């Protein structure tokens, strides 16, 4: 049997199993349509305990929010999302893998991992979040992976500055956009490749890196080994995994994943309507999550410690507030721990629970530009950028 498994997806799944398996059983919400389908999904579910699997193949899984009590999200608990799943191992083995840098540059480059490591290493702590995180809360419903709260995480990324690599190649004056492509491929050729670009300005930012380590360890396969882009403060679809090709261009990348997907109305449109003026998703809007207590948890009357995280893309989080009365009044939470650009900020709020029964905790954050989370996020056709107030209901016991 091993004879068919060695170079196959099957063996890769085993490897995924090792990568994502962890302690405890994660909550898995599947809405299965038939016994046949259910049986198929059971197999995938077992491989990914610890994460909430949304799609078994290609694997899309989110982190249970309780994990966010720690400043850094562990690699094996970090949310997983890709369009086609990881590429075959042989395409990303260090001996085979190359990074090609071309397009409108003076000196096209073909870098090995070894030559890439000659550039100055840098480490950035940054939140990575899927644009569709919270899609399940948009109404009317939007097609796509029905992410709830956990398609986000905070990690330390180590790599080299994209700027240094681009300077080695020499960007010509007409270069305006930088395109990325990974080694992952769709099962069927007619499916468009996942190719995207970012404006040159973001590419040349000293904090935009090509990362080969995540939380001090080699980048895991599910998270883009051997190299991925990290655009701190921006949504994760710009952080291309399994990176093999960088092309400097005069214009934005063509194709489905740049011109159709991952775009939002420039001005919020009425529900159900699309608008012509669509712009690419870029920076993350301000957002907060209540990490503890968890939804449905029992808490005693008296002092209850509410904990959470908040982030605001390229901006700093200025304030986090809590409401116990459906948003009529708000009280300010206290920041804790590390304060690093692009990372999330941990916070706590000591709440005196007085009345037994169900209580709903709401959190909202405000960034340094005064942008504040609203009760709901304006609807958009892709179901992106959800940052409505976070909401957790607990049971107060006498």
């Amino acid at each position: 049997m091993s004879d068919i498994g060695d170079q196959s997806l099957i063996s890769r799944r085993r490897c995924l199993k090792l990568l994502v398996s962890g302690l405890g059983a994660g909550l898995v919400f599947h809405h299965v349509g038939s016994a046949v389908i259910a049986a198929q999904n059971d197999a995938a579910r077992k491989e990914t305990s610890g994460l909430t699997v949304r799609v078994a193949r290609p694997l899309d899984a989110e982190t249970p929010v309780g994990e966010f009590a720690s400043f850094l999200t562990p690699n094996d608990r970090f949310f997983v999302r890709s369009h086609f799943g990881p590429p075959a191992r042989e395409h990303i083995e260090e001996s085979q893998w190359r990074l090609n840098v071309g397009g409108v540059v003076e000196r096209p480059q073909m870098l090995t991992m070894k030559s890439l490591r000659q550039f100055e290493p840098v480490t950035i702590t940054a939140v990575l979040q899927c644009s569709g995180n919270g899609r399940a809360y948009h109404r009317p419903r939007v097609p796509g992976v029905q992410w709830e709260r956990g398609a986000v995480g905070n990690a330390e990324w180590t790599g080299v500055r994209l700027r240094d690599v681009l300077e080695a190649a020499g960007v010509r004056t007409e270069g305006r956009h930088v395109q990325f492509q990974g080694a992952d491929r769709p099962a069927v050729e007619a499916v468009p490749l996942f190719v995207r670009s970012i404006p040159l300005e973001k590419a040349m930012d000293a904090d935009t890196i090509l990362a080969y380590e995540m939380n001090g360890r080699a980048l895991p396969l599910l998270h883009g080994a051997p190299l991925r882009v990290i655009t701190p403060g921006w949504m994760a679809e710009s952080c291309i995994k399994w990176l093999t090709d960088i092309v400097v261009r005069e214009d934005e990348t063509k194709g489905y994943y740049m011109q159709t997907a991952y775009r939002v109305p420039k001005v919020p449109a009425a529900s159900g309507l699309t608008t012509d003026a669509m712009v690419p998703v870029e920076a993350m809007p301000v957002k907060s999550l209540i990490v503890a207590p968890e939804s449905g948890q029992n808490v005693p009357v008296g002092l209850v410690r509410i904990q959470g995280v908040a982030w605001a893309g390229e901006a700093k989080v200025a304030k986090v507030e809590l409401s116990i009365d459906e948003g009529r009044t708000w009280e300010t939470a206290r920041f804790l721990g590390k304060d690093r650009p692009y990372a999330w900020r941990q916070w706590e709020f000591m709440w005196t629970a007085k009345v037994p029964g169900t209580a709903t905790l709401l959190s909202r954050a405000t960034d340094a530009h005064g942008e504040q989370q609203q009760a709901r996020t304006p609807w958009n056709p892709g179901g992106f950028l959800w940052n409505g107030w976070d909401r957790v209901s607990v049971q107060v016991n006498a």
Partner: protein
Amino acid sequence: MIKTSPQIALFFSAMFMMLTAVSALPEDDLNSISIALGPRAEALILARCSVCHSPDLITQQRLPPARWEAIVDKMKHWGAEISQEEAGLLARYLSARYHSGAPDRLPPLEHEAGLAEPLGQEPASTGPIVGVAGRGAGIFENNCQACHGHEGVGGQGPRLSKNPILQHEDLFWDTVLHGRGPMPAWSSVLSEQDIADIHAWLLTR
């Protein structure tokens, strides 16, 4: 007791049918459509859609008919092996079962106890099945090539030409019929003759 003549009984039953037709809950209608189309639609989902993604991506959606039609259309455009008629059936089934108002957790379909209905049925034969390599090429191209590559040289799925599994027929059949790892089960799509033909053809590669 009131005795009713057959004519009156007929009248009442006709009236009853009309009333139920008018006042039937849409939910019931949708449910009937789900049950009627379910076996074939689920077989299509397993065979055609899960070449690229597991069916859970579909079953977590709750969308209006226009959205479902657009999605099926997009997938056909992106290479899903479905005919125009199958696309229509899928859109009707998905709109009925996974509509905007459907609950997050759906009750199982009534046909659940059985497997999805086979798509291509061959007349039952009694003798041993003999694969015909000449037929296998086309069946492979339509069903297997997307993952296993042109001529079975491999792709997302493993290389099949010269793969030792071809010498272990029981394992080969088990894998095709019931799936293995990320490979979906093909028992509801391929007939035994189809599988034998594919096997025969692969042996020539």
